[in-house]
Every structure is written in C-alpha cells, then in structure tokens.
C-alpha cells in the first residue's frame, strides 16, 4: 500500500507540468529530508508497535514544514539554518535507521 502510494506520488511528481522555481529547491530538499526522517521514524514506531497515525502524519507534515520554514528564515537572515535542519534530521535519520536495523536483526 505504502509502496504503491509512493510510486504513484513519484509518477505524479514526474508528470505534473507545474515545476517549482529553482529558488525553492533548497527548501524542498530540506523538507524532503525531514519527511524522509518522519517516514523512517514511522517505520521504527511500527516496529516498536507504538505507531500512532496522528503522530505520524502530524510529525511528517510539521517536520517538513518546519525544515522548509527554517531554511527559508535562515536564507532571509543570512544564516545557513537549513544546515541545522539537515544535521538534525540527518542524525535522527541515521538513529532511526540504526534502530530499524537492530529490530530487523532481532527478528
């Protein structure tokens, strides 16, 4: 189900005629990283059997928006705040991956 939806999303994203201005590429990249982190967090939660749909979805969107907003504000202020988002979400991503790996190994 999730994989099908992902594939559908990729397809839509590739086919949609509207393309974002290149200036937003940075925000979107950070947002994508945050979303990716949320997804791995969700997978991890599902493996720990405490997956909550509301937490997952709200986390997904709020993380993405927050990361993009942070990058936006950082751009306006002349501080590379998106690096903070990248580092924070990157670290969490690897942590989540590590936990998922352990769960997989434990099985």
């Amino acid at each position, binding site marked *: 189900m999730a994989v099908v939806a992902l594939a559908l999303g990729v397809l839509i994203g590739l086919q949609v005629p509207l*393309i974002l201005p290149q200036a937003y590429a940075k925000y979107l990249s950070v947002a994508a990283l945050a979303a990716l982190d949320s997804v791995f967090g969700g997978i991890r939660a599902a493996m720990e059997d405490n997956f909550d749909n509301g937490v997952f979805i709200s986390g*997904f969107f709020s993380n993405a928006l927050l990361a993009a907003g942070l990058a936006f504000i950082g751009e306006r202020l002349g501080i590379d705040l998106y690096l903070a988002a990248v580092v924070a979400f990157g670290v969490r991503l690897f942590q989540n991956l590590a936990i998922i790996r352990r769960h997989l190994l434990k099985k």
Partner: protein
Amino acid sequence: MKIRGFHWGLALVGLVMGIMLAVQFRLTRDIEQTPPVQQTQSLAAQVNQARRERDQLQQQADQLRARLNRVASGPQVDTLKTEINKARLLAGTVAATGPGVEVSLNDSNLTVQPGENPNLYVLHDEDVLKVINELKAAGAEAVSINGQRLLATSEVRCIGPTILTNQSHRLTPPFVIAAIGNPDTMINALQMRGGVVEQLRFWGIQVSIKKLAQLNIPAYNGSISFDYARPAAVREGGGA
C-alpha cells in the same frame, strides 16, 4: 479500523513523499541543466559586446559608404567641373553671362575740314584695340565685338574699311564691344581724364557706353586647333 487508518496514513505519507522526491529530483536536474548565473551573465556580456561591435562595424560601413558617395558625386568631381568651366570661360568655348558694359563705336560725324587727314576721323583698328585693352585692364572677363567672342588668340586687324577678327570674321562699323566685368570699373577706366574715350571723342568718333546688369556674350563658334603649341607638362590633379 486501526489497520485501515494506519494504511490510510501510510498511503498519504507515501504519496506526499513520492511527490516531494520526484519534484526535488526534477528540480535538481533542472538546476544542473541550467547554466550557472555567472556563466549566463558572461554570455550575455559577450553577446552585448558582439552586438556593440556589430553596431560599430555597421556604423563604420555606413560612414565609408557615405564617404564613397561623397567622393563619387562630390567635391573632387565638382572642383574638376568648376575648373573645366573656368577654363572654358577663359578659352571662350562657352557662352558667358553677367553684368558688364557695351561700348558702341562709330565713325566720326564731324565734317572733315579741307586739308585735314580724313583718316583721323575714321575709326581704326587701333582705336578698337585701345578700347578693348582698356576694358581688359579694367578687369573685363569676357569680351566680344559685334557678337564675335574674342579669344586669347583673337586679332583685331584693319582690312580696308572693316576690321578682321578671329581670322575669318570681318566686322563693319559700328562696332559694339561687349565686356563682362565690373561695369563701374570699366566705365571709369574708359572715361578716365585723358583716357581712350576722351581721345576718341576729340576726333568726333561716336562713343556710347551702356551699363548692363545682364549681358550675354556668345561662345566662340569656330574650331580651335593647335598646330604648334603643345602643353609642356600636364600637372596631375589639375591645380591652378
């Protein structure tokens, strides 16, 4: 119910995730394909430079073309033309027009006293020559007698009761000498005290001077040929 919600969430997240990743992928690819701003600017600068150069060259070509036109239809040909006209005027091969005087000379109407030389009362070639000489001295630029243009080589010669000029033209009195030049200067020169006119009038020769604002002197209608004289050296560029 819980599973359904779980799936619904996963589907939504997967969809959004897919869209984000795909859009990001396209964006990144676009950025890679788009030439950097600096390169774009340098290219634009090069284009502008080339355009400027082209404009300059165009301007240069226009200038050169204009110069070519000027030269082709311009002052050099014009100066040659004016020189030719000047030379023609001087040579008498072209009709001349301008302000001037007309001097009419006729034989004396005094009765010859017995014992006097009647030749004194007759108009002679010398008298005509004197008048012409005086006119030339006063700046006459073109002279004719009785419609015969006087050239540089023209003679005024007595042949019996008539005079001969331009080798073949007999002229009979009254002689009308037309001269283009400054009329006042020529009239003053002729009527100078002790001058030509006074001398002629002493012998009763009829002299009348007419000042004309517009005088036409015809061109010499014979042919000009040189059997002996050759131009010694032709100067390039036609100065003088």
